[in-house]
Every structure is written in structure tokens, then in C-alpha cells.
């Protein structure tokens, strides 16, 4: 009796293992961090892009309105793609755009803004990339919508029409 049970059990086990691996193959193995929704924003100190004066994050995110922190760099191609959307969003006075210039050359970054326009009210420098890590970012571009010192939503990769509509619907 016991010996009769062994072959079907072995077959079932193999089927289960096959299904697990097959499902694993279907899933993407590129990891994207979980959205840090409703998390407190990190406290950090940085330097202003223009004046190079030191600044603490609490001086910037100090009111109850919406802030959009955008991590960008002049060398980042997707940042160019999303720039026109940021320019459009900067016309909305319900949100303040803060730029975090990531590991960039000052002249290149300035040329980038002269050519494509400056949507940011304030630009901070992240010369060694550590501030971006404090935010839980893993590359450029990455955007965080902030309200009352909490991250409301996080957008990995370039912004597009659909995401801008989503942001507009949150801040209205």
C-alpha cells in the first residue's frame, strides 16, 4: 500500500516544484523598492545650488503645503524627458518644486536649466549621492510628493502625462 503511494507523491511533488519555478520565471527579477508612502521625510543638511550656503531640510519643508522633491542630473537622459512636465507643474501654485541635483557638474547643470528652463523654487546639491539614499531613492530621476512632512507618493523613473495628472489630482 505504502509503495503504491510513493510514485504519485513523487509526481505531485515534482509538479508543485515545477509550478513554483515556472511562476518564478514569469516574474520580473528587477527589484523596485516599496513605495515609502506615509513615511516621515528624512532630516538632512545640504548646500544651495546657487549660493553654496548650508541649509537644513527643516528650513525648506517648513509649511503644510505640498512639496515635490525631484532628484535630477544634467547627465541623466530620462530627466530631459520629464523636464517639460515639471515645467508645466511649476505653474501650479499649490505645489512647490524642490530640485535635488544628484552628482552633477555645476556648469552642466546650469546649462541644462538655461536650455530647458528652471521649474524649481529651490535647488539643493547632493554631491556624493548620500542625501538621495536618505530619501530611499536608488537613481535618477526620482520624485517624492510631500505633505505635512510626510511622503505622500513616490515616483521612480521619469514623470509622464499620467503621473502629472495623478499628482494634480492629489494636490487639488
Amino acid at each position, binding site marked *: 500500500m505504502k509503495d503504491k503511494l510513493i510514485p504519485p507523491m513523487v509526481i505531485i511533488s515534482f509538479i508543485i516544484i515545477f509550478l513554483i519555478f515556472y511562476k518564478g520565471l514569469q516574474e520580473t*527579477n528587477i527589484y523596485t*523598492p516599496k513605495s*515609502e508612502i506615509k513615511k516621515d521625510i528624512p532630516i538632512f543638511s545640504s548646500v544651495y545650488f546657487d549660493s553654496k550656503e548650508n541649509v537644513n531640510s527643516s528650513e525648506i519643508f517648513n509649511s503644510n503645503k505640498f512639496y515635490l522633491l525631484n532628484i535630477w542630473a544634467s547627465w541623466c537622459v530620462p530627466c530631459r524627458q520629464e523636464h517639460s512636465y515639471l515645467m508645466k507643474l511649476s505653474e501650479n501654485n499649490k505645489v512647490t518644486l524642490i530640485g535635488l541635483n544628484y552628482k552633477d557638474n555645476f556648469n552642466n547643470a546650469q546649462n541644462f536649466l538655461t536650455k530647458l528652463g528652471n521649474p524649481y523654487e529651490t535647488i539643493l546639491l547632493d554631491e556624493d*549621492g*548620500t542625501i538621495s*539614499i536618505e530619501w*530611499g531613492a536608488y*537613481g535618477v530621476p526620482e520624485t517624492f510628493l510631500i505633505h505635512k512632512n510626510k511622503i505622500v507618493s513616490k515616483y521612480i523613473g521619469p514623470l509622464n502625462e499620467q503621473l502629472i495628472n495623478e499628482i494634480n489630482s492629489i494636490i487639488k
Partner: protein
Amino acid sequence: MKILKTIIIILLLIPKISFADDQLERNKITKNLRCLICQGQSVYDSDSDFANSMKILVDKKLEEGLSENQIYDFFKEKYGEWILYDPTLNKNTYILWLLPILIFLLGGAIIFKKLKFKK
């Protein structure tokens, strides 16, 4: 004079020893952190922008006096459990930890039973 020389050499070596300790600690931590943009490489092994920034941040946190576990907690809070190569035992990872032990015990039990029957 010899004693004075020895003392000077020891004093000169102290910062180097503590620097080496810091490096060891940093290497140990970065070997257990996953480089999220290079998949399959630790922060220690990778030379990507992300990994280099992580190394600088680990140094900063060590300078601030954070312990190894506090640094892991800091990164876990930012990026989730995935950032660690050595996941801790919790409700999401208990299968990972317990399944090999269960399989081992089950296999052992089957072999033991078979051997007993043969006797």
C-alpha cells in the same frame, strides 16, 4: 632614548590601527548590503554610483557612532529587508529559515524508518 622611540612609533601607529578597524567594520557591513541597481552584487563588490554613495553613507554612520545593527536597521527602513543579504527571522522569512530544517528532519525520519524496517 629607545623607550622614547618605541613610544613615538606606537603613538604614530594608533590612528592607523583604528583606521584599519573602521575599514574592516565598513567592509563587513557593505558586504552584507545588496547593491539595488546592480542585482547580484554586494555594495562592497560594486563600483556603481549607488554603491559608492552607500559606502560613503556607511562611513558617515560609523563616524556618528552607529552600531552595525543600527546601520542595517537604517537601510532596512529605507529600502526594506531585501537590502540585506542576511535576512532576519520574521513572519516574511520564517519559511526561508525553517523549510531546510524541516526537509532535513523529514528526510532523516524517512531514512531512519527505512533502515529500521530493513533490520
